[in-house]
């Protein structure tokens, strides 16, 4: 029987499948409609120091092979997250908090606020939101700024620290390395791609924010290449994120060297996606005779150079 457990940043995860931030709310909204036993972890909605109202609507555009979103980090703020949301979260998998700051000091304060909370197993550091005017991607596109954020967070917490990086930047490898030097325990590659759609009848951009972040199957081959490249560049586990909808998609990322993977947009169209993906991975492993994920992780690489364990 294939075993899907993985060791990631010192945590045992039941499966390598992780629910991506922004698509699972605070881990409460789907109620019994999602079977979280298929999940290794869920990443809660990114929280900021103060509550944020988010962007003007429309915030979502369906582009056929994916979606553009410009939510704008609407969230209840760190105080309400810790006081009201966290105590209610009861999932049979790991919970990662996600934090987003406008300054290095905000990241530091946020890391301090979620540390030592019994439910939080790791911190995802969002340095890649494409839909906010301050912070977000402005950090993640700059190696020095990313490193500064990571150092500040690292100094504040004993929890595993996992930055989520932006995809469409020059020198992603440099940012990835800088994040690791700053103390990252793993990297998520990558957030959504900045994009736009225009309503030709109304002759203006569809989204209230004008642009948004593209996700879904449309981006998968591009993110796969980024994962391939970053796995080569760093010595920490890489968590893949980008257009995974089927077991086959996840397997591509694992064969490229990813230690785990996030699903996001697909949950918005199919609440049973994770169960289906995990079952498909199990079928693949049994057909190939693999007992564990590590048995085939990185096997698509010439010389099979994937990082071993964590």
């Amino acid at each position: 029987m294939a075993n899907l457990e993985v060791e990631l940043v010192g945590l045992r995860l039941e499966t390598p499948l992780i629910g991506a931030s922004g698509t699972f709310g605070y881990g409460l909204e789907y109620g019994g409609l999602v079977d979280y036993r298929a999940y290794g972890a869920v990443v809660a909605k990114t929280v900021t120091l103060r509550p944020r109202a988010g962007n003007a609507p429309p915030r979502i555009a369906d582009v056929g092979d994916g979606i553009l979103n410009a939510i704008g980090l609407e969230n209840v703020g760190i105080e309400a997250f810790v006081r009201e949301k966290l105590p209610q979260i009861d999932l049979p998998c790991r919970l990662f908090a996600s934090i987003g700051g406008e300054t290095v000091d905000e990241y530091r304060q946020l890391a301090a606020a979620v540390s030592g909370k019994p439910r939080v197993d790791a911190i995802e550091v969002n340095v890649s939101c494409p839909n906010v005017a301050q912070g977000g991607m402005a950090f993640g596109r700059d190696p020095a700024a990313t490193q500064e954020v990571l150092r500040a967070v690292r100094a504040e917490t004993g929890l595993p620290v996992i930055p989520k990086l932006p995809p469409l930047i020059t020198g992603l490898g440099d940012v990835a390395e800088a994040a690791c030097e700053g103390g990252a325990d793993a990297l998520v590659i990558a957030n959504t791609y900045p994009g736009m759609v225009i309503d030709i009848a109304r002759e203006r951009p569809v989204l209230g924010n004008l642009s948004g972040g593209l996700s879904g199957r449309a981006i998968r081959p591009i993110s796969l290449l980024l994962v391939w490249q970053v796995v080569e560049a760093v010595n920490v586990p890489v968590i893949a994120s980008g257009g995974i909808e089927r077991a086959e998609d996840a397997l591509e990322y694992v064969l490229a060297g990813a230690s785990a993977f996030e699903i996001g947009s697909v949950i918005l169209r199919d609440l049973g996606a994770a169960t289906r993906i995990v079952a498909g991975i199990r079928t693949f492993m049994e057909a190939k005779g693999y007992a564990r994920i590590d048995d085939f992780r990185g096997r698509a690489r010439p010389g099979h150079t994937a990082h071993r364990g964590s």
Partner: protein
Amino acid sequence: MTASSPRAVRSRIIGSEKLRAGFYLLRLDAPEIARAYTPGQFVLLRGLAPGWPYLGRPFSIYRSDQDATIEIVYKVVGRATTVMSGLTEGEYEVLGPLGKGFALRPGCTRTVALAGGAGLPPVACYCERYVGVLDEVTLVVGAKTAQDLLVPVGMLAQGIDLRLFTEDGSKGAKGTVVDGLVRFLGELVGGARAVQVIACGPREMLSEVARVCRDSCVPCDVSVEEVMACGLGACLGCAVPRMGGGYLHACKDGPVLDAAMVDWESWKS
């Protein structure tokens, strides 16, 4: 009104018919949803046919039949509804019932229900459900022309005071749904006490209805529409500007909202 927990089901198409140019009725086998919904609640439908875009689409429930099937009425406006109009057999992924529906306000004995264009389904659903409960139900249905006018013919005999309006006067009275509301309020003897307005239709219409109701001190609930993804309050995609700042979410706070809670000025289409 808070309803029972939503279900994710696969539903077979029982019927699909063209009502008039651009408007279709879809009947689905969905007993769990048919038994559980309240008027104004909606379902997210995702077609399993080729050509379907990415996300499901929200539709208010129009009516149900013997706790076995649900019906929705939709207008073809884009990719998803175009695919739907060509689907006469097969299945949909259905999530529902979702959101908050229309509630009877305490002390309310008369409702004037306003339906503009494709906004008829949730409003007609309300009328059908409460016609015997309320003392008086007036249903005002409006459209640009007779061609665009959806008429719930099956309800005429049920004691609903049905009033039709077209902007060009090609059917019913000449004017808009808002004219119908103004006329109704003008006919009231002894003020608007115990009257409740409900409405669904284009955003501009709802905004006008909200203004008239505010000026007349009549409570008004509207069923709103905004581009939506998860339908369950997780993704925060379907934001509706809230009076006084911030946002409501159509899927969870709505789709039925107190019209006074919406910042209509900020929510222009």
